[in-house]
């Protein structure tokens, strides 16, 4: 009788142990799965960040963690800046319903970003209805001038296609002005402790924005500065524009309208 009780007790103990072991294994497997998912998420995040800043900068930021020293990641670089802005958007924004306006604007941003990305540029920021993009900021790119002008031509073509779509919906056509300039500046993590982004600071960006403003003066859609010309493919058809004074620059700025690229 006693033996039976002991045997049953031992068996019950073994069963309880087996159950506990099984539960523990399941728990471990579940934790492992969560860890895998978190690791994959982290990997995704790192890769996503690499599109916003050079991979080396992202790596340094991850390694430094919160003890971030943004100054350590800053460097001088030659970059081509492209600044694009919608012409007559303010007037249009007053006429359209907010939801329609947002859809039109998002469609515009998407198409312009695709054209920039396709030509190895990276969109740094959207400023209202404007787009600031860089070529040669994330990776060294000796062909950045040609890439930027090809991107601008692709943006022009994308805009034409988008306008056909908008017309089909009875919506007004959009027009874009693009200014491109190349120069040296400070590239790095810039901002406050709370909000920081990989940016490029210097006269280059200001001048690209000013040149974009000149597209209205010259009634053209793409303008480049003299700084791009030496490295530009000779198949781009350029038209010289009269030099114009711009805010913050002592000398009048010589620009060229980009007509087309000969094949």
């Amino acid at each position, binding site marked *: 009788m006693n033996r039976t009780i002991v045997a049953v007790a031992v068996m019950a103990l073994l069963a309880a142990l087996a159950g506990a072991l099984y539960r523990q294994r399941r728990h471990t497997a579940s934790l*492992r799965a969560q860890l*895998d998912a978190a*690791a*994959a998420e*982290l*990997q*995704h995040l790192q890769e996503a960040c690499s599109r916003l800043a050079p*991979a*080396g900068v992202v*790596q340094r930021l991850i390694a430094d963690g919160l003890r971030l020293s943004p100054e350590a990641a800053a460097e001088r670089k030659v970059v081509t800046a492209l600044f694009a802005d919608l012409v007559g958007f303010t007037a249009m924004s007053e006429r359209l319903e907010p939801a329609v306006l947002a859809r039109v604007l998002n469609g515009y941003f998407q198409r312009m970003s695709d054209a920039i990305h396709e030509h190895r540029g990276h969109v740094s920021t959207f400023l209202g209805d404007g787009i600031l993009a860089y070529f040669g900021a994330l*990776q*060294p*790119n*000796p*062909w950045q001038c*040609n890439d930027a002008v090809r991107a601008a031509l692709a943006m022009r073509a994308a805009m034409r296609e988008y306008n056909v779509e908008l017309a089909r919906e009875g919506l007004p056509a959009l027009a874009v002005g693009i200014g491109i300039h190349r120069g040296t500046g400070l590239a790095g993590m810039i901002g406050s402790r709370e909000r920081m982004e990989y940016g490029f600071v210097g006269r280059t960006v200001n001048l690209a924005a000013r040149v974009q403003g000149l597209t209205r003066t010259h009634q053209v859609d793409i303008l480049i500065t003299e700084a791009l010309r030496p*490295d530009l*493919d*000779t*198949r781009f058809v350029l038209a010289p524009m009269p030099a114009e004074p711009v805010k913050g620059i002592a000398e009048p700025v010589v620009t060229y309208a980009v007509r087309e690229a000969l094949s």
Partner: protein
Amino acid sequence: MASALEHVAWEPCWIEPRPDRALESHARRKQGMSNPAIPYFSSVPWLARGLVDLHPEYGLLMQIDHHIMDLVGLVVSQENSCRFCYAAVRAMLWAQGMSTERIQGVEQDQARADLPPRTVAAIAFGRSQSRSGPVGARAARDALRRAGLGTDEMKELAFVVAFLDFSNRAHTIPAIPTRPVERIPDQLLMRLLRPLVNRILRKSRYRGQATSLDRVPSYPYVRLVRAYEGSPIAPALGRTLEEMWGSRHLTRRCKLLMLAVVARGLACEVCAPEIGEALQNEGMTESAIAHVLTHLDAPELDPVERILVPFARDTIWYEPAVVQRRARALRDRLTGPQLLEGIGVASLANGLCRMGAMALDHP
């Protein structure tokens, strides 16, 4: 075993695999097992052989430990987003008995604490060279020296990274199918045979022995090959280069132009002069070369060069799916072997520039 690269977009492969008994048995003899990628490269034999003969695990390393090589292979393939090579190295580490947790730890840089400082430095070197290339060579060399690596070890490590940069691109650009390799650790049969696979792998991996360079090279990258004189790397590299120049799918000038474009894109001041000289020997003037390198085109280029010269720059910094789509788009304009040889040349150029910068003292 979930791979960190499984989410990386990978286009369908556009090469029809073509079995080649001679090439496949060459790979089997050298690597101890069949190489599933060889049939995809068989139309360009120098490329298929180069991927086998330059593989550092099989008799080319005299200084660097194979285990370090594997770990460097893991992080460089991860950097280059090469799902094929990444899965192959993972499978190799797994077969050798490394747990999946530890493999993931290395991938995520969490194993720094329990890896020797030299290994950590080698891994960091692999990462930085894949990211920055020749421009970061001096800083990378200083970091390795601080970790206690000697000159010959550094040169071997530079070769390992160069081979990986070559192999990663050669597998990524034509989108060689990854599933068969990625599945290896999950297959029941492979799990059961793991100890046996480990034995086969161990037997086929062997240390290199000092080897003299019998033939003085007569092609560009002479200095680079000579920099490895005494190591088995020199004759292996020399042979691959010679076979590459000897292959007739693309002209010598076209290959040189592609090499020059990659050297310019990576700002490699070591390789560029030698390639420039070789292009002048092909009859190109200095101004014509400068024009091609500035605009990636020139009126005197032939139709194949006009396609492959701009394509070469796409192989320097890329996202796998984007470069795969760009390569696929060229299929109608080039023959299959021409395109594959172009991919091979550009891939090799990416490796050689990084290697040259380390081995020949990039300024």
